[in-house]
Structures are given as structure tokens and as C-alpha cells.
């Protein structure tokens, strides 16, 4: 397998945030205007600016050919003012090749201290296809930047954690469908679902952590709803997220992320 072809990326999440906010204010932008904006924010020379903008589009942060706008996913994150690291993890996950190399790099070099040629060697040993050194270094440089942006709260391997979250969602969905006899759009009692998840080996703490993450996940939460009932009918007990008490969870469609 070749190392995923990402050749440029933002060095900080703040720069990326500045770009997305600026595009949001001015969309639709002509492609040249977008290039100029990228140059102003990232201070790259023209050839790199072009590659950087292409990388953003390729990853799904921006979209468009002659005119550039925010992708649906980016727009949601910008509208809600959410942490962009989560957006990067989501978009990276959609590109399975990119996701697996990010995860591998975090495993090989958790502190990102290896020099690029050394890291490349280790990746080749892991089975990635050897290619021209300059090309390999260029890709690694960009992917490492993406990894840095994805590190939330000093998490060493956020990709592995994200995969755990996605696995949780897969189990959640299968248990949900078992409860609804295969129907989406039907409410299930959250506490009952939690009991079933426990039987599948998902502990309460893991359940709480991931349900909280799902509740505030701008992309995945958009096809879910949490609702409540009056006290007289809450036999199974409420489930609390922040200040809200919920009783039912409903999935209106599959939570599975379509991967490229």
C-alpha cells in the first residue's frame, strides 16, 4: 500500500480555523480569491499555496472547483463553533488509507520525534510501498502536520480512540436495531439500551463517554434524537447528559460513515 498522497497541511488548528471562518464569511469565493486567502493565512509561496488548497479540498474541508465553499461538514463545525480536531478526525476516518497511516505513525512514533527518513524506513518495514525519498518525505511532512492538528488534549493516538468511538457506534446501532426489530426512526429507552450494551461488554463509563461524544458530534448527531417523557412514565429511569434528562434515543438512519 502506498503512503496516502497528502502533500501539504496546516501546521496549527488555529490557522485552519481562521481559514474556515474567513471562507464562511465570504462564500462563495472565486478559486483565485481562495488561493489568496490561503496565502495570507499560511504564508506559503505560490506553488505550495496551490497544493495546500488542493489538500483542503481533497480532505473534504472545502469544496468546489471554480468557486470555493465550505463542505457540509466544515459548515456545521463552523456554525456551531466546535473543536475542529473532531472534524479532522471525522474527515480522516472517511479516507481509510489516510486514517490507517495516521494511526500507524502514532503507534511507531507516539511523540513525533523521529526524523522523516527514519519514520519512512519504519513505515516501509510495516509494509508501505517504497517510493522516491523526496516524495515520501513530502507526504510524511504533511501527514505529521495533520496528526499534530488531530491531537486532542495531548492524546497520543487520537485515531485509535476515534476508531474505538466508531466501533462503539457500530455496536450501539446493532443493539438499537435488535431492540426495534430492524426499524430506524423508532425510539428506544436509553437505560434499556445501556443494559444491552453492558451485556455486549460495554461498561457504563465507556457508554457514558461515547454517548456524550455522540450527543455533541455535529455530523453523527444530526441523524439522532434524544427525547424525554414525563416523570410518571419514566419507569426505566432518565439518562442525563449535562443538564438534560433524556428517556428515548432514536436513530433515523444508519450511523455508519461512508469511507473512501
Amino acid at each position: 500500500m502506498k503512503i496516502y498522497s497528502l502533500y501539504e497541511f496546516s501546521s496549527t488548528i488555529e490557522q485552519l480555523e481562521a481559514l474556515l471562518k474567513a471562507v464562511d464569511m465570504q462564500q462563495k469565493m472565486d478559486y483565485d480569491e481562495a488561493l489568496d486567502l490561503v496565502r495570507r493565512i499560511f504564508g506559503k509561496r505560490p506553488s505550495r499555496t496551490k497544493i495546500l488548497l488542493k489538500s483542503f479540498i481533497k480532505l473534504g474541508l472545502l469544496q468546489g472547483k471554480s468557486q470555493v465553499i465550505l463542505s457540509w461538514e466544515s459548515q456545521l463545525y463552523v456554525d456551531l463553533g466546535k473543536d475542529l480536531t473532531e472534524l479532522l478526525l471525522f474527515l480522516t476516518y472517511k479516507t481509510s488509507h489516510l486514517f490507517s497511516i495516521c494511526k500507524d505513525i502514532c503507534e511507531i512514533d507516539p511523540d513525533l520525534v523521529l526524523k522523516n527518513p527514519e519514520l519512512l524506513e519504519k513505515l516501509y518495514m510495516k509494509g508501505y510501498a517504497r517510493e522516491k525519498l523526496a516524495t515520501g518525505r513530502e507526504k510524511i511532512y504533511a501527514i505529521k502536520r495533520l496528526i499534530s492538528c488531530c491531537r486532542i488534549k495531548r492524546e497520543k493516538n487520537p485515531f485509535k480512540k476515534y476508531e474505538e468511538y466508531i466501533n462503539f457506534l457500530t455496536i450501539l446501532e446493532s443493539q438499537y436495531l435488535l431492540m426495534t426489530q430492524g426499524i430506524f426512526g423508532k425510539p428506544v429507552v436509553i437505560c434499556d439500551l445501556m443494559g444491552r450494551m453492558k451485556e455486549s461488554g460495554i461498561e457504563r463509563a465507556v457508554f457514558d463517554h461515547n454517548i456524550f461524544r455522540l450527543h455533541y458530534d455535529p455530523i453523527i448527531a444530526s441523524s439522532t434524537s434524544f427525547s424525554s417523557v414525563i416523570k410518571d412514565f419514566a419507569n426505566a429511569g432518565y439518562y442525563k447528559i449535562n443538564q438534560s434528562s433524556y428517556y428515548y434515543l432514536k436513530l433515523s438512519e444508519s450511523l455508519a460513515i461512508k469511507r473512501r
Partner: protein
Amino acid sequence: MKTLGLIQNLFTNIELVDKNDAIAEISAMRNSQPPKRPSFIVNQEDAKKHIVTEMANCAQNNMFSYIVLSGDVGDGKTLFLNWIYRYFSEHKEFHMIKFRVEESSTVKYSFIKMLVAEVFKRYNNTFNEALKNAFKIIDDNLPEDEYIGKIIEEYHVSNELARTVYEFHRNGKATMPAFRVLGACYGKTELAKLKINNLKDTDYHKVFEWFQEYRITKGLIIILLDEFEHTYLSLTPAMRKSFMLSYKNFIDRTAADASRKTVLIAASTEQYQGQLEKGVSDIDRALWSRLNGHIVYLAQFRPADDKNVSQLFDELRKRYEKAYDINLPDVNPSTIRKHLHFKLGGDTTLECSYRIAVSSLLVILEELRSAPSSTLDSQDDKHMKEENHEHYKIIQQQYQKLIEETIKDWDDTHYNNRPGKIKSILELLFNEHKYTVKPVPGLNKQRVDALFVEPKVNGKPNKFIFIAIATTAKSLTSKLIRCNNIRDELVKAVPEIDFQTYFIYQANLANKGFKLELNKNTHIFPIEFESEFYDLLALNTVKDENVKQILLSNLKDTLAKLDISI
């Protein structure tokens, strides 16, 4: 076939809305009510398809169709019922019966009695004619006993019902009371006049079947039953049982006969779903399994979906413009979505009810209307102000969220690790503000709750800072004593180094005893944190520069006491 065509077009939105209708519709929605005569229903394609298919089946094959619409409060159940009622009411061949499950003394909580009573009230003439047609086969000239005996023999009904039919048919003094008893709208007077006891549910099943069979027009009978969940909310167990049994019998009898041409659409709020299942199962498990198979779950509104948002917004906008005789400026769909998210709380994209989406979009329309010279998209000053205002609100929300997360994180942090958290933030702050953080001089072992800083510029003193994290007033006081002891040790160990001592603590634990101790030690500078304590902690995780500015401005006064000027 005309009926089939009508059914196929059931969910076509009305394009040309009359101004008065538009006003009525907007006014209802503004008051969070489903419009009585709705002119549009957006999305909900699955439910629409299901209803059309079931109705078409019923019309084509004369069979009985049964649907239970289920959804959360405000998902549009009543809107669907109102829509169907409005649509078919315009066509005389259909018989529309719409009622709610509610307390009513005349019908004694029986589904079939409620149904017959509604038919009696709404289709009085048709009902009358149907009953007359039903008994044409019986010779009017038969003596009373023979007439009654003939009815019992022909229709297998109770003596009471047969007597009522006789009185109804006889055209005497008791005809009207008998008619009212047959129509389930009667009291004791009617029964006394007829000299009979109450009719039973099985009698009314028969009455309704006479109506089904002997009415002159043969269009579909559409029964719309709202607030089905009230069976469990407001009825007593005995009433509940009575209602459910008559309901079950109705379904069984109607489904068993292949010529009923009847559609029953019930709407039930899903917040009582568990109760519905339990209640129905307790009375009759077979009924629940039948009910369960007919439930159609209404979809919720997806604020993150551009198509969902723009369809609803466009329909609302057309009616809004018609109602107020105005033309609103064009607005980019993604701008509408952004504003909608903001109105819905701004921190999740979870689905919501249509009612909430509609009222939020109406507020956006109000805003567009009150600012007709600009649009939500324009780049003029007004827009910029609005953007800044919106931006400010978003930052405030981010700030609130950050503080909530910080409090949670602090609560989750082990007691022993808490001083370390404060220490690392203070180190960062001092480093950024022209101080050098050093190990505490004269201490054999460095402490996690103490730090020492040296100014890079002359004129400011060295600082020894003690971080007191306590859970009780008593332990806070003992920490102050500990701080004083350490200070004394330092003065002895490194007399050549001059420094000032600061004691950092949370205000909520400071009681009288602590303050007394503080007054005794005037050489210790107290740094008291109130709510800004969490602002300090949040500095550790803040990413957004604007939010950071809020934190720093809240901390400004407290940090000034530590010679850190923001």
C-alpha cells in the same frame, strides 16, 4: 377511478394560498398549534407513502386499513390528521369522522360509542337514512313483539337494541329518543322513555355496521382518532379496559368483513409508548401485536440537512409573504441553517420536532421582515453588526461550554493532582508575563503546591506562592499555617533571598477562623478566587483566542494582585 386519483394526490401541497388561510395558518403556527386547515406538509415521505398505499388498498379492495401514527410531541401527528380531514372533507362521497380520546359522560369511554356519537353528530341525516334503509326488509305492520323478535332473529342483537329500533321505526313519541339512543347521544330520560337499560358495546358495533352498509354514498369512511395515548393518561384502569376492548372488537369485526371500506388512522404520542404497549398487552396481547405492526413512526426535523431546512423555510416563507403582503429578500439556505442552529441552542445538531423547527424559522422570518432593507446575507453595516452580535453570542456559548467542561474536569481530577493543575497554569502565566519560574530555594524536596518566581525586570519582588486546595474550612486554615511554616523555613534556610509570600485559595471555604488566622499573618498576601477560579483553570484548555480574552478579562483583577497585568 376518481377515488384512487384523489388518494394519490393526497399530499400535494396547495400552491395558491388565500390570504386569510395564510394568516390563519401562520397565526396557528406562531402559537405552536397545528393549523386546522394546513396547506403544506414537508418531508415525512415514508409516512405519506404509507398512508396513500393503505388508503388506496382500502379503496381498491374494500378492505379495512389501519394506521397508528407515532411521534414525539410536536412531530406533526395532528397536522397529518388535520390535513387528511381537510382534504377529504371537500369531497362529499367520503365520510370523515375525527375525534379525540377524552373524557365524555355520554359515551362512557367506549371507542365504539364515541365513534357512533361522532357519526350521529356529523352525519345526522345520512345516519338516519342508513338506519331506515337497514330495516326496510322488515314488515312495518308487524305487531311490536313480532317486529322486535324479527330484528333479533335477523341481526342477532340484544332485546334492548331491537326495542330501540322498533321505537325508532314506529314514528311515534319515542322516535327521537330512540334515534338519540341509536346515535349514542342520550341520557337517562331517553332510556326511561324507551323503558330500556343501557345498550351494550356489541349493540353499537351493530349500529355502526348498519351505517357502513346502508348509507347512500359509498365512499371511504375515514376515522381519525387523535391523542390515543389519553387512554393511558386520563382514563382509570376500568375505563381503559373498556375502551381498549371496544377498540379491539371494532378492529376485529371491521377487519373480518371484506366490504367495510373503512380506514382508521390513530395518532399516539410516543412519550407514552411503553405504557401503550404495557396497557394494551395487559388487556389483550393479540391486540398489541396487531397494533404494533401498524405503527408508522413520523420522522423528526433535521436542522443539519439543507434540504429539510430549505423546504420548510420556503413553504413558510410563501405563506408568510402572502399573509403580510410583503416580499422578503432572498437568503442563502446555509445562512438560514446557521441561524436555525443558533436558535435551537447552537451546540448540537440533534433532530428536533417540526413544531420547534417551525417556530424557530418563523422567528427568523420575523427578523427578516423587521429588517427589510438588509438581508441576512448582505455585507452592509447592519449585517456586520448582526454578525458581530451573533459572533458575540457564539463566543459566549463557547465560553459557557468551556467553563462547564472545566468544572467537570476539575471535579473528576483526583484531590492530590489538583494543586499541580493550578501550578502549571500559574507557571505558564508567569512565564508569559516577564517572570522566571524557579525551584523553591531552600527546600530539600520540591512541593506540588508551591512555586517560586523571579521577575525578569527590576522593581518587582520575588514571589513564593502557596496553592491551597482544600475541601473544608478547617483544612484551609491548617494549610495557611503550613504555608507560614514553610515561609519561616525558607527565611531561615536562604536569608539572602528576599521574597513575598502569596497564599492562593478559593473564597467559598474562608470562614471566620481562617480570616482570623489570616489577620495574624499580615506578611502573607491572600489571593482569593471566587467564580474566576474556573476561568483560571480553563486557561489550560482554551483554544479560541476570543474565549481566552473573556477568561483573561475575568481574571484581570485577581491576577493584578500577583503583579500580572493583562
